[in-house]
């Protein structure tokens, strides 16, 4: 930590297809069609968690920072802008044509390089998974590359001195997990109620700094990232046949029996 009293937090934000719309894979490149995109709603919990941590320490005025970092094509800057409206103190947009088609290995490589460039960071906070790729690999790979401990799926979060403590809720047990700062944390949708941007926040955001970074700024070669640098490849992608509606009946007093008949006919008893 650069200063025991203040926190430097990087929040990973991502611009993703809105889950309210049908999501599409581009048929040629198997990449995601992002024409109807928003700030991943799961990242709002990460932004909120970061804001609550710095607000408890006197906020930006006291020298605390929440840096919203995104990687993606030009429109992805909107995810950063939304985070700035909510209260993040500055933004970083990692944008380079060569990044297109990056898998988790390439994404974590570029994000790790960007974070190292930001100087000493106490916490990296991510949402529980992106709502599009859903692989959950990036936070753990980022932690590995940065040599950080990871505390994932936090349903609550405390930072005291240089220790982060989180509660996790698993199927077999609930756990309290602890790590020393600097650390990487991912948070679930149980952790808080994200705020909405207010008018003051929207105005203030216009004056906040957004730094654009390209691969060359990070000392990375195009061949290390993107489709060229990927360690995995998609060979084929088939849209799953839409689930057709089956039999719908209205209960006339014997629907429970009919349900069992149906299960028996499908050998599910």
């Amino acid at each position, binding site marked *: 930590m650069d200063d025991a009293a203040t926190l430097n937090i990087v929040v990973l934000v991502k611009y993703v297809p809105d889950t309210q719309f049908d999501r599409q894979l581009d048929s040629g490149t198997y990449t995601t069609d992002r024409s109807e995109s928003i700030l991943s709603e799961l990242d709002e919990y990460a932004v909120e968690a970061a804001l609550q941590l710095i607000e408890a320490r006197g906020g930006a005025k006291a020298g605390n920072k929440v840096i919203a970092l995104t990687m993606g094509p030009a429109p992805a800057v909107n995810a950063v802008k939304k985070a700035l409206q909510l209260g993040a103190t500055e933004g970083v947009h990692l944008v380079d044509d060569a990044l297109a088609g990056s898998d988790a290995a390439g994404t974590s490589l570029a994000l790790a390089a960007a974070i190292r460039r930001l100087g000493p960071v106490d916490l990296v906070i991510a949402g529980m998974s992106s709502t599009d790729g859903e692989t959950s690999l990036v936070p753990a790979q980022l932690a590995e590359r940065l040599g950080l401990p990871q505390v994932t799926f936090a349903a609550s979060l405390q930072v005291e001195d240089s220790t982060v403590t989180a509660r996790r809720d698993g199927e077999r047990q609930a756990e309290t997990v*602890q790590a020393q700062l600097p650390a990487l944390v991912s948070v679930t949708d149980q952790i808080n109620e994200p705020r909405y941007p207010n008018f003051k926040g929207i105005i203030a955001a216009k004056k906040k700094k957004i730094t654009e970074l390209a691969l060359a700024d990070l000392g990375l070669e195009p061949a290390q990232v993107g489709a060229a640098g990927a360690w995995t490849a998609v060979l084929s992608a088939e849209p799953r046949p839409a689930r057709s509606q089956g039999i719908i009946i209205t209960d006339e007093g014997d629907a429970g029996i009919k349900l069992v008949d149906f299960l028996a006919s499908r050998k599910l008893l």
Partner: protein
Amino acid sequence: MTDTARILVFIDNLAGALHKVQHELLTLARSLGEPVAAVGGVPDEALLAELGSHGVATVYRPAADLEDSLVAPKAAFLANAVRAAAPSAVLLENGFGGKEIAARLGIKLSSGVITDAVAVAPDLSVTKSVFAGAYTVVAKVTTGTPVITVKPNTIEAAAAGTGGVPQVVEVDPGDPGPAARIIERSPKPATGRPELSEARVVVAGGRGVDGDFGPIEELADALGGAVGASRAATDAGWIEHSAQVGQTGTTVSPQLYISAGISGAIQQKAGMQTAQVIVAVNKDPDSPVFEIADFGIVGDLFKVLPQAAEEIRKRKG
């Protein structure tokens, strides 16, 4: 496939008996090559015997049990086990822990990682579904040793029946670097029901149960299934959060999913629409859940579910 194609399975517990998913992983490994196992500590006799019954000839382990930390020490040990075993692929469980170990292992070995596998072919291409089941994708690791996390219920577990006692090989646990540790555990009371993510039958309730999961549990027990819930039901505190099915809860792909008093929001569907058969009980005929139901009942769950449970018990005798 030559007999040198080893498939390394990571086993996260030190004592017998193996879980259902671990039996599945070992069965899958045997279908792809010669299964070998890496265990994150000193395995007991019972565990070695069980691994042997799956045809595992070699077990890799650290000199002592790994420290009680999350992920990082397991990934560091596993990386050394991979270097010792030189397998053609590594298989892990698909839970949060398994995916995170896989993620770190991938970076340590400069190897591609594929999660959520529902099938692994002899050429190590992996089938998985993405976007909450909207697409079925076949993917392949192109760099390094493929690291694959496999979902439950992808293969029928079977022992090889050629049980020998595996040879145990000690490997250096490696340097895990800074790691998070668990400082407190509160185990949940055992319900006697199967685990949600692995269950072949899931009966789930939503806001429509209005605080009473009794009918859901009764039907789940009649079918030997697990109990699930929508976020509306877990947020209301009617059932614990770990029962939540959906985008921010557990993803399930059971043979049968019975949804009762759940409207079928997109975030709920994200966690259950790859179920083989979906049954919906909802009193609103316009509820979106009926669009994906193989069998839908417009009716009151408090009448339909108890009647069905009673009928099942009768037929099962």
